[in-house]
């Protein structure tokens, strides 16, 4: 039992359990909070994988911005009586769960069948340097400058679109 396995079990366990809780709670605020916990444990897993920048970006972007937006909207709308919507259509739920279970088994089978650990060939020690801000920044502003600019335009368009959609219409 190395430290890495212990950390993986703890963080991965939290991620798995919270992802189940997110989709089973009737109250959206509780779901949102457990989703935050899920994102935080994912950030821990990224640190374990030496992806420091992505880990911090995960906390800043997901936990700090996106989920606060979710909470904000939920609190603004105050959707009532979730229980009624929640308990409808048990048949659909059972079928969906079966389908999902089959897909999951399929993926697990594929993972073991192809055994990706044989095909990952890179130097593991190189990943320590690959995850730093410097490495990511260098790559982002040289080889990937066009997608980077495109992402910037996407965010601008999204900001304008959100404004147009959410603006109250005064008649």
């Amino acid at each position, binding site marked *: 039992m190395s430290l890495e396995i212990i950390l993986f079990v703890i963080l991965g366990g939290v991620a798995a359990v919270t992802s189940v809780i997110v989709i089973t709670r009737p109250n959206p*605020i509780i779901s949102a*909070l457990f989703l*935050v916990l899920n994102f935080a444990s994912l950030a821990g897993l990224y640190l374990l994988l030496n992806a*420091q*920048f992505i880990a*911090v*970006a995960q*906390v*800043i972007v997901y*936990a*700090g*911005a996106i989920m*606060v*937006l979710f*909470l*904000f909207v939920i*609190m*603004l709308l105050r959707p009532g009586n979730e229980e009624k919507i929640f308990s409808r259509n048990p048949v659909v739920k059972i079928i969906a769960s079966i389908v999902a279970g089959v897909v999951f088994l399929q993926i697990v089978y594929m993972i073991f069948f192809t055994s990706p650990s044989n095909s990952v060939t890179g130097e593991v020690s190189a990943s320590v340097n690959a995850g*730093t*801000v410097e490495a990511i920044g260098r790559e982002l502003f040289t080889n990937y400058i066009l997608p980077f600019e495109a992402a910037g335009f996407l965010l601008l368009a999204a900001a304008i679109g959100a404004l147009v959609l959410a603006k109250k219409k005064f008649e």
Partner: protein
Amino acid sequence: MSTWEIVIFTLIKILVIFTIMMLTVSYLVYFERRISAWTQNRLGPNRVGWEGVLQPFADVFKLLLKEDIVPEQAEKKIHSLAPVIALFVAFTTYAVIPIGPSFNFFDYNISLVVADVNMGILYVLALTSLGVYAITLAGWSSGSKYSLLGGIRSSAQMISYEISMGFSVGGVILLSESLRPIAIVESQGLWMWNAWIQPIGFITFLVSAFAETNRLPFDLPEAEPELVGGFHTEYSSMKFAGFFLAEYANMIISSALIITLYLGGYQIPFIDITTLGLAHWFEVLIYITAFFFKMGALLFFFLWVRWTIPRFRYDQLMNLGWKVMFPLALLNIIWVAVLIMVFNL
């Protein structure tokens, strides 16, 4: 150093920093009350001990002994969780802020920062972005309309000002070429403080820091005349004390951060004390004193502003954040970039 030595030294550092924080927080509350009294021509607390210096302890005991009232409508668990988040965020942020240079202690080289992370500034930004949750959840879980309004206001306000805060930090990072707080302090040198080089960024950061800590003139989440007590209306006893401590701890962290980023950290302006030929431990002591002196001055500024400037209206706050501070922060980045291009700083 072996792993165990690192663990022990880190624990000692955490303990020291924690004690300093708690003491500073309690005396900050005392000074806030004395300074407000002074501003308003009153006396302020002066009964407990000499000139009231034991007042913080009396406050803590009072809050400990009070009954903890949880409202009927509240979501009990989240109601108790919110102050814990507030305290956690407030105290963990301090881990990356250097209060002095590294020094040699017998055979060990000790740096005066709990965790010398190479992306310390991003860590601070990440944790401050989590601070929103405490207030938002406190507002929602109380089950009271005043708390909810305070919570909604705070989430909108803190997200808005986080952006100009992040962009102001961008200018500093451009100059220092590092995200490590120690490297940022050292890159400022003796007199080239970022506050002189990029005054616009300094001002936007200062204003954003006021907004992030919910201090007047931006304390809309708890505006007393409109919202009773805002997000902490329904809190009492130690839970209220949690929010109270977190607010003052946040002030301390903001001022420490401002010092690190813009005011040269622990360095003394114009005087290079390494050339004076002083003993090593004395130099370190001077550096630490300089840091705490700057911190005291900034904290006084925080208190001074609170008792001088009236509260903003909510739409004014949003306009200021998005239409003034955000463009100014962007302008600051361009200014720094031009400086780097022209003067090769």
